[in-house]
């Protein structure tokens, strides 16, 4: 009994980390930059397709594809930021919403055109398959790896955004554009880099997630709800908040499905509604 409880906690935590990796980029673009970026999962999908293509068609090792997935999504978003998002930073939320939904449509159609509608096979190297046995408990290797990856991303991001000059500039530019400009900060440049960072993280998250959740063109829509749930529950602009929210949601979802499977489909939404009623600005939200 205790064994299964530990197992459920572990699975829930790993699932939470998966959600975290998918959504942490959004807490940068939506949370920090206040841009309603519904195309977040399009960038994640791009990362996923990059990884699949490199692994399946070109035979690259899995780990080598991850930085490429990050860079590809970052580059794509940098181009889009320049062309489409930048003029809309000050537009209404609704316009941003419409624009990014348009991008989702285009990306889904593009993916279907290039890769077909078929489910992409994701074959991991053997050392990431299987499980580590610990007494009577089994810890799947890939989930351990996901947890590790999420922790690394969290530490690096928090360090980069809160303890470096770049991070200080980002925060200044996001808080008050005019003042930041006055201080000689290249606000446009900072925004472009920040946006690329958020989307690159999405690409990385996508590349890491497809092993568990699969990949086809509807990816860009399917996981949108989950990432927005994580970011809103965590509190906008809070990396730590997203981490905690993803953990809570992952564990409660997993525990619910294990112990009360009849409620399986309801749980993640119930938890979200409950948490938001308790803290409307999210667990770590300031606004």
């Amino acid at each position, binding site marked *: 009994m205790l064994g299964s409880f530990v197992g459920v906690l572990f699975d829930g935590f790993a699932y939470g980390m998966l959600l975290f990796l998918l959504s942490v980029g959004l807490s940068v673009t939506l949370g920090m930059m206040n841009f309603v970026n519904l195309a977040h999962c399009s960038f994640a999908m791009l990362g996923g397709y990059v990884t699949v293509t490199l692994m399946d068609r070109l035979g690259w090792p899995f780990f080598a594809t991850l930085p490429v997935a990050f860079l590809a999504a970052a580059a794509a978003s940098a181009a889009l930021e320049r062309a489409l998002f930048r003029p809309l930073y000050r537009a209404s939320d609704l316009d941003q919403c419409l624009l990014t939904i348009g991008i989702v449509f285009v990306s889904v159609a593009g993916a279907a055109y290039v890769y077909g509608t078929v489910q992409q096979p994701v074959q991991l190297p053997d050392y990431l*398959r299987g*499980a580590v046995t610990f007494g009577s408990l*089994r810890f799947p290797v890939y989930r351990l790896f996901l947890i590790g990856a999420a922790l690394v991303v969290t530490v690096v991001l928090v360090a980069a955004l809160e303890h470096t000059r770049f991070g200080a500039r980002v925060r200044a530019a996001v808080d008050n554009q005019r003042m930041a400009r006055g201080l000689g900060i290249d606000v446009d440049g900072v925004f472009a880099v920040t946006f690329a960072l958020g989307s690159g993280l999405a690409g990385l998250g996508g590349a890491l997630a497809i092993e568990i959740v699969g990949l086809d063109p509807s990816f860009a829509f399917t996981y949108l709800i989950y990432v927005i749930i994580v970011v809103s529950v965590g509190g906008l602009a809070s990396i730590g908040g997203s981490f905690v929210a993803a953990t809570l949601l992952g564990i409660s979802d997993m525990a619910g499905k294990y112990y009360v499977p009849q409620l399986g489909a309801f749980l993640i939404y119930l938890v979200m509604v409950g948490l938001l009623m308790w803290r409307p600005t999210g667990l770590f939200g300031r606004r």
Partner: protein
Amino acid sequence: MARAMTPEEVPVRTSMRTTRIALALAAALFGVAPAHAEPTVKIGLIMPYSGQFADPAAQMDNAIKLYMKQNGDTVAGKKIEVIRKDTGGVAPDVAKRLAQELIVRDKVDILAGFVLTPNALAAGDVSAEAKKLMVVMNAATAIITTKSPYMVRTSATVPQLTETFGTWARKSGIKQVYTMVSDYGPGHDAEQGFQRGFKDAGGEVVGSVRFPVANPDFSAFVQRAKDMNPEAIFIFVPGGVQPAAVGKALAERGIDAKKTKVLGMGELTEDEARKSMGDASLGIVTVYHYDHNHDSVLNRGFVKAFNEANAGRNPNIYSVGGYDGMRLIYDALKKTGGKTEGDALVAAAKGMKWESPRGPIGIDPETRDIVQTVYIRRVEKVGGQLLNVEFDRIENVKDPFKARTTR
């Protein structure tokens, strides 16, 4: 309609002239279709070409194209014209509207396609009202064909596969089973069918669970099943993303198909799912009515032609459903000598029997539903490739649901 309204709304003084131009333009766009010199038979295909179920639709469409390429587009002196309509997913209101429009505007003679049950059910009303032949090429809920006397099905029904499988499982020596299905209509049908077949044959169901339809991670459910330690597990999930996810969860949890028998509907070991699962898929036993690995001359030719036409991709159940559906339409038209009245076509289709890539199949004259061989397959490694290898079969299976209700 709407094209004519938009220009009217421009708040600047609309001149009569612009209005007239707009109307003329609109009439040109939507006006009477050009008259055909040649007599045609029009087939309206209603499928979810976009959205979550786009892949089944694409696979079916590819087979339809292949059939027409192989057999020409003229039957009984009439040219076959196909009109494709997208429902965008589960949308019975859209499917019904498209069926209506196909009939009143495009004047189609036959409705076909139908990957999804709710859409097929909704269009069934239209088929009944307009007295048009409707060929269901995939949707597998048992009751569908009762919706219209002009409906025939060339895919399979869920109970046809699962109930048969349940009976087979007990006979193969399994005494206890735990069932896991997706929590929606087809899943419930699969659960019910399998449990009925298994229990009627004397087996015991030790537990069951239903997973949410949108479920990215199956590990909790699989863990739960493992903790019950049943002799066998029966699994049904819709095709697409989920089979691979379930398969990976099974492997991660250390459920070994050699110790705990893993049974499933054929979706579980589709091509892409097996590829993603790798060796973890070895030993999974599934039930289905078609696999591209089926050994027959006809099938080898079909698979080869399909591969060539679709960049090496293999046909699947959707493809064979579409392929046989076209075969049915062609043969029925030949029988009626090109007459397209629903009564004539459905009469021609009743009792029809032919050799399909999946084996011998026929249309039950009473229920208009498919009669076919159900195959039991196991995933094995053949020449380094993971394949569904047929090792048992039950021939001439009718839909047991309708067999019960009509009896």
